[in-house]
């Protein structure tokens, strides 16, 4: 199964990285959030360092959200999803492939950019490292939960509007634990946040393909 699976992951990655794709957009959005917040709250580096974990986590989640509504809808609208469903891959495997591609093209780049943005917020070393690790662990959860929302709304023309409404409450734990990890690191404490985040991410990634596949089946029959 590695041939078909890999080909789907690579295709989604290729589409995301081309013009009109999602990777560049997510990075730009993330950077813009990191720029606008200081403009809004002032350039006090003490304050910025304290809110960096939360602001950057929320920014990353919102940036990852941008490309989610096209995750399944693009293939659904042009009939590719029919063809993909008839391939040797099960719909669950398709869901895993798309999740993987989404994370590689959105979550991972955001994570890699985060240390630079942490600099803008004057986040000290340990905090930056915690931010990086928490995003590395947590963005798969964002892609996973987001994929469920994307598959639920794939038939909607303006599904992009209710998609954030559906998934953001479900992502509250990720934001809480992720930002909590940064706070702990800055205060030189340990509060188990990363462990909790990892558990949440593992659960989300494990369950998401089943829910997403169920939604795709539902919509193919529509």
């Amino acid at each position: 199964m590695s041939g078909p699976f890999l080909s789907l992951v690579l295709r989604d990655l290729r589409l995301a990285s081309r013009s009109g794709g999602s990777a560049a957009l997510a990075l730009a959005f993330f950077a813009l959030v990191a720029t606008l917040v200081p403009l809004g709250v002032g350039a006090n580096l003490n304050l910025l360092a304290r809110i960096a974990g939360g602001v950057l986590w929320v920014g990353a989640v919102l940036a990852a959200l941008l490309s989610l509504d096209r995750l399944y809808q693009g293939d659904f609208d042009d009939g590719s999803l029919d063809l993909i469903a008839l391939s040797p891959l099960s719909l669950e495997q398709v869901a895993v492939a798309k999740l993987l591609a989404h994370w590689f093209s959105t979550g991972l780049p955001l994570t890699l950019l985060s240390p630079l943005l942490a600099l803008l917020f004057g986040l000290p070393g340990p905090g930056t490292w915690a931010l990086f690790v928490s995003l590395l662990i947590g963005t798969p959860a964002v892609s996973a939960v987001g994929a469920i929302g994307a598959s639920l709304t794939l038939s909607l023309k303006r599904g992009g509007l209710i998609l954030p409404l559906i998934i953001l409450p479900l992502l509250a734990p990720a934001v809480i634990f992720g930002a909590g990890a940064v706070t702990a690191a800055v205060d030189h404490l340990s509060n188990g946040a990363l462990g909790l985040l990892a558990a949440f991410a593992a659960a989300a990634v494990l369950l998401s393909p089943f829910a997403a596949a169920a939604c795709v089946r539902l919509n193919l029959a529509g």
Partner: protein
Amino acid sequence: MFRYANPAVFMRLSGALLPWISGAAVILLAVGLWLGFHVPPDYQQGMTVTIMFVHVPAAIVAEAAYGAIAVASLFSLVWRHPLADTAARTAAPLGAVFTALGLVTGSLWGRPMWGAYWVWDARLTSFLLLLFLYLGYMALWNAIEDEARAARAAAILALVGAVNLPIIKFSVDWWNTLHQGESIVSGQIARVFLWPLAFMAFGYMALFASLWMVRIRTEIVNRRARSLMQRAG
């Protein structure tokens, strides 16, 4: 059990039960309120504690309603129980209203204690997220045109939300201890408060049940009217 799946059977049954349940709701709420106003003033909160009798039952019903929607969604997906979709869909706005009521009364209750209407108390914050879950659920139902598809999509969302809800509450609690937030009520509730609370809680549940039944009956009647109109002419 699946006998009740037949809308006609449900109509007969609910028609018989409705007067009793709504009557019970009125009585329970009346007694509860009377008892609530006649409790001795709490040594800490004075008479504002009476808001608790409006807030706590609302919170209980709001969460129970989401649980009910999750169960109905399970029936809808696994056993294809025909009334399950209607039950889930009609319960949502009711649950949302009770959640909003809980938020408002919780905020009013907190004002004398904390000096502010909102201090990110763990329970109220989870409650706010619950309100968003309700709104998302209702929005999904409204957005998908095909009713059958909307029902199944909403059912999947409700189940995902139900699984996530304990996690959300846990994470908000954890967050709250991290940031040393305020807490609305801790420790035990004095026994003298338990009676009015119990009456109000059951009263609210009876109220929810009767409103829910009315909504399901309305939906069934509407559907009949629609199919009649489709056939005529």
